[in-house]
């Protein structure tokens, strides 16, 4: 009994400590004091109204979301196609691609960022004869970051695949392309979706690769693309943090919690369904 109480205390204490900074920020999002720790006693939703009027934050938020969705879509397509192709390639090719794929996974983000920047600079100098830093370089940076993870998410699903289904589709007259689209891809879907989700979260969270590879474009127009990470980092440096960011943190926190709970419930349901199906078969 005592053990149980101690165990639960430990779990919840660590949990609480982990959430303290965010919870404090959320509490202070309902007041307009400029300094955390000095509650000026007024409960207000003003920061939430101001948040949507702050052009800089809205541009950064918009850029972040657009970039996350596009880069996740590209990474998912590239990673999935790559995983399928590699799985059916000969042994040597597979080993080589698999090993190279592992490099960005274990590599430090700053090394990825720096090395890509070199490539872009040199390409701009000798190939395009112009500065090429733009949305496209940023996109490539984020795809390098996340495509290998899509690959790793799709690979186990390929190993579980029943090879006779694809052959059956071919025997029944489907073209290889059609069989791929209609038979294989649906079976790989869980892996593809988790790869997509992971890509989104990697892109949303990235700072260093963005800071190195970005150029003008998207909602920032002729200026360097600001994502939330780079925007916040720049205002922190200048010590002129708009207090509306507290309201933004609260909203992000709430949406993350909602998504997380939904995902957990969905996973649990899948698990139950698999269990039930197994129970029927055996």
């Amino acid at each position, binding site marked *: 009994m005592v053990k149980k109480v101690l165990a639960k205390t*430990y779990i919840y204490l660590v949990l609480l400590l982990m959430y303290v900074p965010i919870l404090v920020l959320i509490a202070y999002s309902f007041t307009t004091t400029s300094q*955390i720790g000095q509650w000026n006693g007024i409960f207000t939703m003003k920061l939430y109204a101001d948040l949507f009027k702050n052009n800089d934050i809205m541009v950064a938020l918009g850029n972040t979301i657009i970039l996350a969705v596009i880069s996740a879509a590209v990474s998912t397509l590239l990673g999935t*196609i790559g995983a399928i192709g590699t799985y059916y390639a000969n042994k040597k090719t597979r080993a080589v691609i698999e090993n*190279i794929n592992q490099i960005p996974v274990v590599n430090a983000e700053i090394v990825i960022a720096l*090395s890509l*920047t070199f490539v872009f600079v040199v390409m701009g100098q000798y190939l395009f004869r112009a500065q090429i830093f733009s949305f496209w370089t940023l996109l490539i940076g984020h795809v390098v970051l996340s495509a290998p993870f899509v690959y790793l998410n799709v690979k186990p699903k390929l190993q579980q695949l029943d090879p006779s289904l694809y052959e059956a589709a071919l025997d029944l007259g489907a073209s290889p392309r059609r069989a791929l689209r209609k038979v294989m891809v649906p079976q790989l879907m869980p892996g593809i979706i988790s790869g997509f989700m992971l890509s989104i979260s990697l892109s949303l969270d990235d700072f260093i690769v963005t800071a190195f590879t970005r150029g003008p474009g998207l909602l920032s127009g002729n200026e360097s693309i600001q994502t939330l990470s780079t925007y916040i980092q720049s205002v922190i440096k200048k010590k002129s943090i708009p207090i509306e960011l507290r309201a933004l943190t609260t909203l992000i926190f709430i949406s993350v919690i909602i998504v997380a709970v939904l995902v957990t419930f969905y996973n649990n349901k899948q698990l139950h369904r698999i269990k039930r199906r197994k129970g029927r078969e055996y």
Partner: protein
Amino acid sequence: MRFRFQRKYLCIPYALFLILFVILPILMIVYYAFTDTSGNFTFEAFISFFSSTSKLNVLVNSLMFSILNTLICLAIGYPLAYLLANKKYNRNAVLVMLFVTPMWINFVLRTWATRDVLTWIGISGGTHPYLATMIGLVYNYLPFVVLPLYTTMLKLDQSQIEAAINLGCNRVQVFTKSIIPQSIPGIVSASMMVFMPTMSSYVISDVLSEGKVTLFGNSIYLSFSNSQWGQGSFMAMLMLVIIGISMLLTRNFTEKEDNGRVSKW
């Protein structure tokens, strides 16, 4: 001859992508690390790195921070994962998820929140840069430790633990002789999730210490923004070498672990 579609051709675009944006960039780093501005071969970056005490200091500093961060995260995360995996204390998956969700909030935002709260309780970057950075690092990397440890703990062979108890092991012996050896793969992968990223982290030390603590990541960033490409590349290459070595070490380690298990049966 007509082109016939085969599934293996699908790896071509991905292979090209990897060559162009993974292999080529790394070759460029090696190239810039050993050439000067006019393209001649030189050991200058190598020599100036190992003869500069401030650069070596940064290396030692980052290593210390990484080791300490890994140890603290393991010390907090190991018991946590053990308890979370025990059905007696934790019956729902939602709790585990709550430990991982902070990862999904933008980490610059989180770092900012941590800084404000730390400043509030008197540990600001101005007065305690090392402590503030350490706390920020632990905050950021704890979720990365909890997840791999938790999945290992779920797979613990309970019958082996019971057998150890029945054969007369006391609690400490059960822990050191059964639970720890069984969870070593989890410990290794958790450490890898913390150690390397800590060394190369940029934002956390930059924000929380107000620029007073320079980790390897900050150093690379700085030399790049000062357009010292040679220096930056050399440090990036050093980072790659360290990553490569630790990958090899842990790979050997886990393989041995597997072989040991096979031979036992």
